[in-house]
């Protein structure tokens, strides 16, 4: 923790740096920034933009529809984390499916899925898994355990996403996405950015190596940040310092959790169980090698193979600018639905549903800052 004097010094130093726009790509950062009111104390030269950092938000509508269809399959018990239940699909959400009689269970830990399968031998337990690299090793451990125990009535609908590929896609010129509303401003192009506030949790697993391309290819600095307001302040100050000194490197302001090389054990676990595949991101579109799927050796636990459901591709809800918000092209209040048709009580897009969604964070904590 910094003293008020130290904080003031950091803020003044940052203010003397060049005008900069930094993107955070972690939902926990988005919430920490909104909750601490950080944007209000930052000097006007430093602006923060939210990127595709909320795993619930980037989950494609078609994938949600698949999960809902699975939940309605006879004998299926669908387990997932809390936020997923409320994300609207084309026709309702998992929470609505539950109210209509589907067996949807909310878990705190993926290991509970093993217990559920064990306690319900006559049922098919399916674990719907979303997240980035942070949670993937944990899911890998559960899949391995399921295989070791030969838990035949458990399978996994893996919707995990990988951060480095989508950051690359974000910085390249993405084509306008199918389903994007052309009447909205800025549906194409890439966000103008001067650096990244790097996600502390993802980097604790991956290390910083997979992100060096940011500096080498795009001349963009990155600083790995922790999750206290002061952690983020320090990282932003380091970003400004890099810019002032004309550097574009990967630095770590979160040494208490992140090592350069990351967590090798977790990386090996991920590699053993998963392989990178093309994945569809809501509002961003299809990005090569940006998702995870179970390897051949674990295909018996792949829900997509066990339940070959055909679900139609689904357009995003009309008017919803979640895609543009996720790509940092629009700030949440710039979406025409924000705070009117779309609120946390009755969300239209996923960014308003998830507690880590940038729209929900902006609505909950920052409305007066507009």
């Amino acid at each position, binding site marked *: 923790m910094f003293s*008020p004097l130290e*904080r003031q010094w950091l803020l003044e130093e940052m203010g003397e740096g060049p005008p900069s726009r930094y993107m955070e790509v972690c939902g926990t950062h988005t919430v920490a920034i*909104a*909750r*601490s*009111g*950080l*944007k*209000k*104390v930052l000097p006007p030269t430093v602006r923060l933009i939210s990127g595709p950092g909320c795993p619930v938000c980037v989950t494609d509508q078609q994938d949600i529809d698949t999960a809902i269809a699975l939940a309605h399959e006879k004998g299926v018990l669908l387990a997932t984390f809390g936020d997923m239940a*409320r994300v609207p699909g084309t026709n309702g959400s998992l929470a609505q499916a539950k109210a209509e009689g589907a067996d949807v269970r909310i878990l*705190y830990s993926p290991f509970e899925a093993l217990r559920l399968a064990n306690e319900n031998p006559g049922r098919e337990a399916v674990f719907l898994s979303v997240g980035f690299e942070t949670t993937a090793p944990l899911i890998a451990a559960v899949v391995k355990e399921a295989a070791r125990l030969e838990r035949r009535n458990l399978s996994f609908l893996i919707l995990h996403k990988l951060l480095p590929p989508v950051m690359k896609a974000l910085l390249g010129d993405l084509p306008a996405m199918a389903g994007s509303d052309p009447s909205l401003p800025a549906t194409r192009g890439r966000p103008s950015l001067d650096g990244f506030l790097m996600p502390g949790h993802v980097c604790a697993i991956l290390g910083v190596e997979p992100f060096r391309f940011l500096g080498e290819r795009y001349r963009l600095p990155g600083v790995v940040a922790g999750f206290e*307001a*002061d952690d983020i*302040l320090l990282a932003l100050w380091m970003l400004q310092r890099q810019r002032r000194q004309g550097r574009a490197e990967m630095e770590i302001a979160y040494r208490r959790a992140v090592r350069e090389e990351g967590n090798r054990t977790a990386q090996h676990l991920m590699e053993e169980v998963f392989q990178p595949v093309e994945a569809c991101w809501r509002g961003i579109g299809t990005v090569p090698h940006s998702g995870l799927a179970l390897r051949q050796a674990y295909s018996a636990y792949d829900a997509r193979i066990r339940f070959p459901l055909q679900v139609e591709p689904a357009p995003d809800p009309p008017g919803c600018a979640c895609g543009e918000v996720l790509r940092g092209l629009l700030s949440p209040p710039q979406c025409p639905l924000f705070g009117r048709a779309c609120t*946390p*009580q009755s969300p239209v897009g996923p960014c308003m549903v998830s*507690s880590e969604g940038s729209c929900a964070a902006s609505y*909950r*904590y*920052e*409305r*007066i*800052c507009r």
Partner: protein
Amino acid sequence: MSAIARGNLIARGSESSTVTLAHGGGGRLTQQLIEERFLPRFRNATLDALLDSALISAHGRLAFTTDGFVVRPIFFPGGDIGRLAVCGVVNDLASVGAEPLWLAASFILEEGLPFDQLDRVLDSMAATAREAGIVLVAGDTKVVERGAGDHIYIVTSAIGEPRLDPPPQPRLIRPGDAVLVSGFLGDHGIAVLQAREHFFDELPVVSDCAPLWPLVRGLAEAGVIPHALRDPTRGGLATVIAELSSACGLAFSLDEDTIPVRGPVQAACEILGLDPLYLANEGKLVVVLPEASAEQALETLRSCPLGRDACRIGVVLEDTSGLALLRSRIGGTRILESLSGEQLPRIC
């Protein structure tokens, strides 16, 4: 039902160590259940009369409230569903400045509930009622089939007499009023979550479940007239402040640094992604009152064991936006919204 069948049922029921459907039949077993387990614990002249309705005397204005309790698990560190069922309504009365007097309770028992668990709940209820000075004068029991309930549900209603004039309510709140809280926040929510999910090997957090009337009586006796009182249960402090500010149309400003949250509660929240300001409390009081009497109120609260850690957490602003604002440690400001959806299922 034939005499033999009835005899079997009764014989089986009376030997049983658990609640059976027959205990809800309204016949001899129901009577036995009430006479053996309920009446001895709550003994008083009004109840013992066993009339269809309790006859009570009152004069003037009364405060009347009701609440249902479905907490899972029914026992948790620092309390149980019985204590909760008394505190819940007593604290509703206390929040309008009313002294708790009479209590009614309905019990929905699930077939198979072990009698020793029922006894523990009733013992705890009786002890809490004595502690709060409230008398149980009416009650009912029903039994539902196994699977149709979850151990035990309790619905309580309570009547009290207002001791503060005017009774505290949001429309009395004025700009410049001080906002106090009687102690550490979030203990109950985390204690129940830990009892249910066992996330941590050990967690030194117990529910704060307690009747708040002694605190309010203390304020009344000290001549303090609060503008508003609330017990921040489901939805926590944030929801209560958001509701108060919206009800009176004035903005509240809280100082994050001054809001008391225990270290283990803060740590558990960080790990689980919860916000302590939205966690339930069952023995805390939020007091909004004129700045001039704030110091005296703090002193009064702190002189009572329940209010030992009372402190000042904010102020009511001139601003008529009706928003609840929180100043963060780094000097930023954010809005406190009412809880939307649920942060934790079935905590009370």
